[in-house]
């Protein structure tokens, strides 16, 4: 069964047609990179998948769990799908380890001791174990984003969504975050990642999805997509990235 299914998905913001008939099928363990110009609907797409935005038409499912406007169903979806934001969105009033423990204790029914242990293990894995008792404001951007990845992983999701996870970072910190994501990919995590880091896409992605004006314009293997994009808009977009 597919990990994520989107078929005929439409989304409007008022009169604005933000997603137009999006079809996409993602297999378990697959790594997808989504790229496209700003405003093309990448964030909207990814936010519809975990129900942060509701779609108006079509079907979205995580495995066999339909994404629909029902609190219980949405919670089940969100437990299975982790999300990492461009602006980290760590909770500034909690320490790093408390950030990681909150959802497992309150949603995942882990005991505090269990949640703490899990948090420590994952914080070590993203290499900020020594920062666990600090507050988010005391960490650098790269460290914060790694903490946010650990926080999402603490819920043991099957799928991870990333929305431009490195766009808010200084160049010197981009690599440390991408390294973590690459490691995650090689562990077999199903990943859907909006990013313009083409090096990462080449190395990690199974497929690259190019979006423009709310539509999926082109889907292809990274080598094929980067060397010979079929579509004019994709070509123009890649041209801009290189210059």
């Amino acid at each position, binding site marked *: 069964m597919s990990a994520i299914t989107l078929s005929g998905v439409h989304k409007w913001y008022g009169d604005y047609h933000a997603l137009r008939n999006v079809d996409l099928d993602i297999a378990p363990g697959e790594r997808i990179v989504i790229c496209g110009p700003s405003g093309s609907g990448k964030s909207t797409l990814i936010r519809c998948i975990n129900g942060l935005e509701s779609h108006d038409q079509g079907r979205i499912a995580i495995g066999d769990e339909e994404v629909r406007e029902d609190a219980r169903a949405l919670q089940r979806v969100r437990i299975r799908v982790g*999300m990492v934001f461009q602006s980290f*969105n760590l909770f500034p009033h909690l320490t790093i380890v408390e950030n990681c423990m*909150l959802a497992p204790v309150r*949603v995942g029914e882990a005991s505090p001791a269990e949640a703490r242990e899990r948090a420590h293990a994952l914080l070590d894995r993203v290499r900020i174990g020594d920062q666990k008792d600090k*507050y988010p*404001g005391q960490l650098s951007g*790269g460290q914060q984003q790694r903490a946010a990845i650990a926080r*999402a992983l603490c819920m043991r999701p099957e799928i991870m969504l990333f929305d431009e996870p490195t766009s808010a970072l200084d160049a010197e910190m981009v690599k440390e975050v991408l390294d973590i994501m690459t490691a995650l990919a090689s562990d077999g995590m199903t990943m859907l990642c909006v990013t313009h880091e083409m090096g990462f896409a080449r190395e990690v992605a199974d497929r690259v999805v190019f979006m423009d004006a709310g539509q999926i314009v082109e889907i292809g293997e990274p080598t094929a997509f980067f060397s010979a994009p079929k579509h004019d808009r994709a070509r123009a977009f890649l041209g801009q990235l290189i210059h």
Partner: protein
Amino acid sequence: MSYVRTAPEAILPAPVVARPSLAASLFGDAASSLATVFITLVALAALPHLFAWAVTNGVWVGDGEACRDAGACWAFLRAKTPFILFGIYPEDERWRPMVAVGIFVVLTIWSLPRKHWTRATLFGWIAGIVAALLLMGGKTIGLTEVPTSAWGGLPITILLTVLSLALGFPAAVLLALGRRSPHPALRWLSTGFIELVRGLPLLSMLFVASIMVPLLLPDGVTIDNLFRALVALTFSAAAYLAEVVRGGLQGVPRGQEEAARALGLSWAQAMRLVVLPQAIRNVIPPLTNTVVVIVKNTSLVLVVGLFDLLSAGRVALSDPDWPAPYAETYLMIALIYFTICYAFARYALHLERTLGQVRR
């Protein structure tokens, strides 16, 4: 590439700007020197009079006669303090309001350290309030019944303050959330309530509660006057606090709620555990301000015939055996209010410093 930084640069605190010395503050430039000299002269002119009134000519012991044509009549306060503090509550039963006040003092002191902010403390408060009410009323627990119309002084002030804040604050949080709700009905109801209550003078609400409500009730149904005043005060507290809380909510980025929801937290959990703690920390100073106003507003219940501290003081002053020492009485009452409000403000400042570290 040995010149490329591998570790991130440490984040340093902003440099400390030294405060100018006291001497520099007082006489640093012409304007400060002038202000210093002026204030000193005014103080020198006023202080001897104040000292003569309060100390040299002050009457510390004696009766009403001793106070005639003298300075401050402190003897009056000696005689009337129990009445001002406990109003017309029967004299033989005064231990009951004393114990009630004691309960509140103990609970307040116990609740100060943050590690005591637990569910048990919350239940302690509920139990304490119920115990104080039962003790004051007496009938339910087999003591002489004292109707609320005979309650008075400090216990009334404390009860009204504690209850209007304890009931008003949760209501304020719900109103603030309601005002931001996507459901139009909830939003209109909350906005309507807040704007209506803020737009009405508290005095008129108290009058409505104490005079109009009984007229509207069917025959035989009565609602205690104290309770009606409490409802008016709670409404007012809820409306003002709601706007402060809403301000705090606006300062929390949308991404906080989204991140919480994306982790699977319910809306209520996201609010309670993520958004509200940040919102409230961000508005501790205006919250303190509003709370202090609410504490002092309880004194307005004197217009509907309740015996709070201020009304008890006024009744004490009407005793014909004494020459009505207004200044002394109001000074004492002011001192009690000031102590409560100042202590609260200092505590809030302490909280602001210790929990206010929502660093982004």
